[in-house]
């Protein structure tokens, strides 16, 4: 029980207060008679906090003592006791692991309760059979992209250890949050470990003190919703009050815009690089870019900097490239030549040219470029929808080039990507890692680490259907971790030589960021090639509906862990804008129903398969946490930390800031400051891309960044049929697909039809709605060649004409059982594009999606699908 901040107030007789931390932030959990009574945001005791602060213009900013929670934090009592909890193990009624499996009935049949003992017996038999018959590569594992928070109870911890102990194939995600930065950024300037995003170091102080202009380009930092955002709300208010001018470039008048923007410039989705190219053009004709910096820190900006000297240290690490990189770029192929129309396309990228494409008036592009050139400017430009589309890598490289033209590393000039690259003072020490969320969890502290013995390590999530239905397959890119250019250039084969096709799919958590073109996964899931489909999840949703076995998992309230709250500190350690703290996730309540932790399930299965000792090495949940804690520098005994519930690292007295890019700015050739590129410089002309894809500007990935009209975009032929560009900004009241059915959240945003159903909102501009005879609150059908969904029309000027916001994450509720059926829930990923970004990367391009909408007679539709209208095939129906 937490002892802080509760002593002075009476929480009531028999009430105990526990600490924990979810994806929404850290919290106090009040428990009475074994049930959660209330959930509060965590309030640090001021007597135990020595806070950092920033002073600017005589004003002080201090991070709050009461840590803000994202919307699903306050409502999480509701989710712990949700009717959608999986309370006990369940088996699909017509799946017989010893006989008929009826894979084609997945998504249709109901479920029956079974005992844990029967569950483990089935799993044991299945593992033994598959390992005997096919070997470990037939075992495939995946997980939801953002499950419940934890260090021990986390996918990198328990799932990876179990998978690697026996060996298995990994159905992997890509870095969806900043897809184009991962596939493009490293070719510009390295930062491979950060997926192409430059580090966050000391950006918070630098923006506060030095930045005059803030540009939010496809960025909604206040409600970005990746463990953070809302904790920057006071910071945004402060910056606004300090008089920083905030310009929002976005197809949507987003939440941060609504709160603090001075000006909104609506930009047609997917045309970002046209705007960026025109800004570069204006700087070149005005001669207002940092020419000297470009001369010394970059290659390929202009024709005078197209001969390349390579960094020996880089070539030592990547010997395959020695002698295989160009000595010089092809004449006429520099960035400046491209911008000025002196390259192969002959088009000058003038503001007038860009205005036609992106929808922002030429004079405003000129004015924006001139203001940006004059004033210290922080650009929120990494992450966002502009990089999650076809040719997303070009966006990263182009915006990175703009930033470089401003002499990155100079005061007040920054490149930010939501909470990932916003950081207050941080010394590299004050964190839970390396046992943290991103670092392998239990694998770091146990004696033995087991590398996955299976060569066939990976299937990219968007390739699942192809692999299941049409093997063999080959593709490039599409990895979650990319430590070097080989990860993009080397071809992946499925099945790999010596490996087999997958037979068992184990999902740790239901897929929260469900894949684009949703029917693809349904097609894969209903194929008999997948003999066993296991989903382990706290709530019965989405993929559970296709599972053969559903395993009940505890929520964070029902187990112990140690975590770092909110922001993304535990994922990207220097990215932190709150009080740097660690939380003990105290076990507040007993597991709901018969739920277990993933760790317990993996341990039991490992024991039954004779490898329990190797899996746990004699440890318990508690002893692993003790070992994790022992690696931190928290000056408390484990028991004291557990009792106290949290620890706040004190502000450093002797802190010396070293902001983003400053060391590279000051000394671009010195040792560790060099960029992780072959030349050690910022490669505006990428020597790797030129070497691999050809020096004659590959149409999908040229040597210098280009504006390339996207697939399923403004200039695609399909726009004649589907004239609206689908916008899939993160949902405000949902964590991807999590908490879709919590009425305390849905009553704030869903559109309740006359039939009483909570329809997902589709934001339409009044002009688009008028043209189609749609009124606010009407039920509409959104459709394209990939699928169709129902939604509730919300008519608003907040979305620009020609664009419809139709986001993802609603729990699917198809009106008929076949893949691609009309989905009443309004899951935007039924419509979204599942193709690759380009030849370079199969990862997410799902924001490149066109659609059309029409008003429907909902009564007529529901009459046509009586079974569907009754919810027969809904994600959350376990009755069948």
């Amino acid at each position, binding site marked *: 029980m937490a002892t802080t901040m509760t002593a002075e107030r009476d929480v009531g007789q028999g009430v105990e207060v526990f600490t924990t931390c979810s994806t929404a932030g850290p919290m106090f959990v009040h428990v009475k008679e074994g049930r959660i009574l*209330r959930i509060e945001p965590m309030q640090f005791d001021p007597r135990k906090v020595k806070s950092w602060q920033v002073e600017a213009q005589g004003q002080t900013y201090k991070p709050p003592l*009461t840590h803000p929670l994202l919307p699903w934090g306050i409502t999480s009592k509701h989710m712990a006791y949700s009717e959608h909890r999986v309370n006990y193990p369940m088996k699909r009624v017509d799946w017989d692991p010893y006989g008929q499996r009826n894979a084609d009935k997945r998504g249709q049949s109901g479920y029956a309760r079974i005992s844990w003992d029967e569950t483990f017996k089935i799993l044991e038999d299945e593992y033994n059979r598959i390992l005997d018959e096919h070997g470990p590569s037939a075992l495939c594992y995946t997980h939801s992209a953002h499950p419940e928070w934890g260090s021990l109870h986390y996918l990198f911890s328990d799932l990876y250890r179990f998978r690697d102990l026996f060996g298995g194939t990994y159905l992997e995600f890509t870095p969806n949050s900043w897809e184009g930065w991962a596939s493009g950024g490293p070719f510009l300037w390295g930062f491979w470990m950060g997926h192409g995003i430059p580090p966050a170091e000391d950006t918070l102080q630098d923006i506060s003190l030095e930045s005059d202009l803030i540009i939010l380009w496809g960025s909604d930092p206040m409600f970005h919703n990746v463990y953070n955002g*809302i904790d920057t709300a*006071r910071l945004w208010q402060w910056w606004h009050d300090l008089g920083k001018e905030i310009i929002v470039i976005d197809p949507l008048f987003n*939440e941060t815009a609504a709160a603090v923007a001075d*000006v909104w410039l609506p930009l047609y989705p997917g045309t970002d690089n046209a705007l960026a190219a025109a800004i570069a053009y204006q700087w070149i004709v005005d001669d207002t870019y940092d020419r000297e910096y470009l001369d010394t820190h970059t290659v390929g900006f202009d024709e005078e900097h197209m001969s390349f000297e390579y960094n020996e240290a880089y070539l030592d690490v990547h010997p395959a490239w020695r002698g295989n990189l160009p000595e010089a770029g092809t004449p006429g192929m520099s960035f400046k030549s491209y911008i000025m129309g002196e390259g192969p396309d002959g088009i000058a990228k003038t503001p007038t040219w860009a205005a036609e494409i992106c929808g922002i008036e030429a*004079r405003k592009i000129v004015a924006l470029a001139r203001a940006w050139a004059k004033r210290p400017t922080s650009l929120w430009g990494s992450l966002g929808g502009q990089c999650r589309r076809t040719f997303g890598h070009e966006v990263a490289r182009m915006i990175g080039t703009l930033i470089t033209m401003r002499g990155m590393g100079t005061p007040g000039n920054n490149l930010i990507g939501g909470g990932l690259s916003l950081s207050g003072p941080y010394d590299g020490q004050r964190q839970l890692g390396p046992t943290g969320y991103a670092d392998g969890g239990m694998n770091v502290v146990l004696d033995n680490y087991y590398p996955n013995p299976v060569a066939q390590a990976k299937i990219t999530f968007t390739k699942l259907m192809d692999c299941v239905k049409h093997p063999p397959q080959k593709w490039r890119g599409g990895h979650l971790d990319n430590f070097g250019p080989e990860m993009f250039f080397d071809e992946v084969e499925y099945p790999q030589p010596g490996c087999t096709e997958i037979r068992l799919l184990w999902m740790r958590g239901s897929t929260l960021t469900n894949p684009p073109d949703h029917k693809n996964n349904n097609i894969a899931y209903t194929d008999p090639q997948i003999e066993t489909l296991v989903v382990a999840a706290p709530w019965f949703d989405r993929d559970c509906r296709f599972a053969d076995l559903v395993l009940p998992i505890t929520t964070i309230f029902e187990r112990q862990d140690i975590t770092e709250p909110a922001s993304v500190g535990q994922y990207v350690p220097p990215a932190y804008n709150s009080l740097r703290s660690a939380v003990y996730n105290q076990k507040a309540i007993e597991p709901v129903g018969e739920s277990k932790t993933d760790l317990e399930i993996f341990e039991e299965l490992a024991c039954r398969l004779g490898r329990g000792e190797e899996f746990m090495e004699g440890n318990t949940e508690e002893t692993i946490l003790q070992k994790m804690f022992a690696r931190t520098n928290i000056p408390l005994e484990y028991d004291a930390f557990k009792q106290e519930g949290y620890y706040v690292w004190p502000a450093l007295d002797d802190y010396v800031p070293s902001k983003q890019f400053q060391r590279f700015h000051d000394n671009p050739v010195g040792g560790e400051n060099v960029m992780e590129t072959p030349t050690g410089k910022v490669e505006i002309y990428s020597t790797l891309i030129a070497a691999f894809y050809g020096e004659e500007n590959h149409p999908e990935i040229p040597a210098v960044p280009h504006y390339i009209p996207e697939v399923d975009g403004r200039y695609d032929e399909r726009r004649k049929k589907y004239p609206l560009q689908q916008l899939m900004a993160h949902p405000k009241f949902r964590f991807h697909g999590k908490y879709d059915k919590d009425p305390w959240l849905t009553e*704030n945003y869903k559109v309740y039809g006359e039939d009483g159903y909570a329809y997902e909102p589709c934001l339409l501009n*009044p002009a688009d709605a008028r043209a189609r005879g749609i009124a606010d609150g009407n039920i509409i059908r959104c459709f394209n060649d990939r699928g169709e969904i129902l939604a509730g029309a919300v008519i608003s000027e907040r979305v620009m004409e020609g664009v419809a916001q139709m986001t993802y994450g609603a729990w699917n509720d198809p009106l008929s059982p076949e893949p691609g059926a009309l989905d009443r829930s309004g899951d935007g990923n039924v419509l979204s594009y599942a193709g690759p970004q380009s030849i370079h990367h199969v990862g997410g391009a799902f924001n490149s999606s066109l659609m059309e909408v029409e008003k429907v007679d909902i009564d007529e539709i529901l009459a046509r699908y009586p079974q569907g209208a009754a919810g027969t095939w809904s994600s959350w129906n376990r009755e069948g």
Partner: protein
Amino acid sequence: MKTLLIDAERCIQCCNCQNACKDEHCDNSWPPLAAPQGPGQFWIQIHEAQSGDGSRIQVDRTPLPCQHCADAPCIQAGKGAVYRRDDGIVIIDPVKAEGMRDLVDACPYEKIFWNDELKLAQKCTLCAHLLDSNWQEPRCVTACPVDALSFVEEAELTPENLHAPLERLHPEYGTAPRVAYLNLPKPWVAGAVYCPDSDSCLEGVTVRLVSEPLGAFYTTTTDFLGEFKLKDVEPGIYRLTLNKEGYQEKTLRKVDAREGINVKELRLYEFTQ
């Protein structure tokens, strides 16, 4: 006596106040002050309004709880079942008020809700059960991530303590509402100025908005994009004048600022000699 102070401009509609209220009061009973809150009730709720069009719009959010009025019509309608505590909090007695559906209509702010299961009219208690247990503030205040809500002594609601003028919501209802507001939504006028001769945005244009009948006058200058926005304008019909040295003055008449309005892209021509 303490009351809620609400800065509407700060609200970001995260709905944490609404949900903290539900977390505290749904499924929990706090006799003798409150019975469990029924489903679909909003003892505090964020009301949203949008104004403007095109690229110049404003989204206003106003948190609306029970006003704990000093002259509360629900007390009168309650005939003894609704009372005011010494600390000013208005409470519907969950036992005495059973069956009194009329209470719902007594509130002009529509902040009393009918619980059909309990046959009870219900509303905000300002978490009086917690305040009585030495808690510092109601749950909605603690949950707010932007300090849009605070819990303050009424005596401290003086101009030197406030960063904006003190307002009340619908004082015309005549119930002497005790909840204090700052920055309630008001009309605005926004647009942009450019020079068609050079097709350039005009920075530093003096913008004046005048209404002689109202005696209202507002002024600002355009930014680097030629954009301007006059906020917190008294509702009315105005004359808008644009001035910049070297350019011909321009006047727009009958600018209807009874609500927020986008006057769009305005042209200012150079003087020609």
